[in-house]
């Protein structure tokens, strides 16, 4: 694989030509915030947190799906980007009911961690306070739609890693929600293999192991990495 050189935040970086800006930055130790991205899953460029400035482009580009190019000049942490990222978070916090204090994922939540990292000290938009339900009909897992940010990691992991196609997004726009099979309670699903990958993939407290109390829902992403490596690279690294 040929290498290409590019500049990220003023640093000259060499990266493989099929890498994305996100991968190249990560390899160089530059962290770009992400939410819908999860190692091992195909990227969809939906959360817009990873948008970066690329010299010569008047549009902001999502780092997760933008391929690197020779001589590319990327900025990942400008004032303008920080401003937009903070707003993405504000919109998410205002959209559903994210009550960190009583959340199973408190302390282990990517959304919560980002709020901290990006300096979101409060939300300037009106909280929507929508009414959402919690489905704990499955014997091992539950889904709390109040905490869902619609990143679709669970959908993608269910379709492309497990292959069951149990989860999907239904509805449109603000009405979007994650469903099980034909919008039925999880416990009645005929396709769910109860593999739990969706729970491992979830960035917030939306998907959890039943019985988890506040702050107890820690995730083990190495399980996903193990499977993806085994599938794609034929390497079983236990």
């Amino acid at each position: 694989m040929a290498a290409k050189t590019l500049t990220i935040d003023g640093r000259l970086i060499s990266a493989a030509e099929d890498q994305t800006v996100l991968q190249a930055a990560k390899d160089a130790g530059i962290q770009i915030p992400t939410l819908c991205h999860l190692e091992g899953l195909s990227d969809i460029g939906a959360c817009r947190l990873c948008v970066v400035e690329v010299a010569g482009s008047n549009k902001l580009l999502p780092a997760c799906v933008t391929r690197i190019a020779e001589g590319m000049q990327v900025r990942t942490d400008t004032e303008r980007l920080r401003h937009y990222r903070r707003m993405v978070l504000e919109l998410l916090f205002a959209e559903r009911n994210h009550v960190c204090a009583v959340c199973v994922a408190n302390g282990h939540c990517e959304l919560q961690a980002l709020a901290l990292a990006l300096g979101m000290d409060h939300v300037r938009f009106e909280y929507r306070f929508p009414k959402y339900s919690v489905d704990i009909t499955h014997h091992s897992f539950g889904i709390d739609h109040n905490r869902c940010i619609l990143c679709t990691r669970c959908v993608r992991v269910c379709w492309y890693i497990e292959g069951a196609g149990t989860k999907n997004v239904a509805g449109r726009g603000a009405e979007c929600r994650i469903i099980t099979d034909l919008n039925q309670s999880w416990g009645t699903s005929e396709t769910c293999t109860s593999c739990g990958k969706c729970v491992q993939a979830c960035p917030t407290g939306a998907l959890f192991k039943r019985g988890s109390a506040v702050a107890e829902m820690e995730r083990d992403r190495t399980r996903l990495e193990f499977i993806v490596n085994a599938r794609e690279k034929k390497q079983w690294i236990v």
Partner: protein
Amino acid sequence: METQAATSPETVPSKTEKHPSGDSRFRILEVFAKRHGCRQDALIEILHKAQELFGFLDEGLLLFIARTLKLPPSRVFGVATFYHHFTLTPQGEHTCVVCMGTACYVKGADRLLATVEKASGIKAGETTSDAKLSLLTARCIGACGIAPAVVYDGEVTPRQTPQAVTERIKAWLNHGSH
């Protein structure tokens, strides 16, 4: 228009030579799907056909389609709920669609809608409790030259006024089908 799709998930077998409910519309739908080679990318065409046959898409019907196309149910439900043309609840005997396109809007479509809502006692997207009338809005039916337009039972009617819609709606609600 038929509005009853008397099916439940349990009654749908995986192989459907003849639908156990005895409803011949399933057979018609299956033939239609086969004409599309039961291709998964024909899902939207098949949902259109199903809605045309049954009036709305209930769970049993969606499951039937999922099995016919060998698709996960979550995919069929996801697609059916993405597109506003598809409805998962039964529609009334009559439908009134108020066009809310820009041209109609600047010519008072919002007042027409308010009038129908008042005359029928239901909001847009709802059906009267006696199932006589479903009230819908459209984003633009492309009849801007004759705005404001209202579609009564599929018939585009130009230059509507609050009086005209009231008469039409009252007639339906009072006299039922004719």
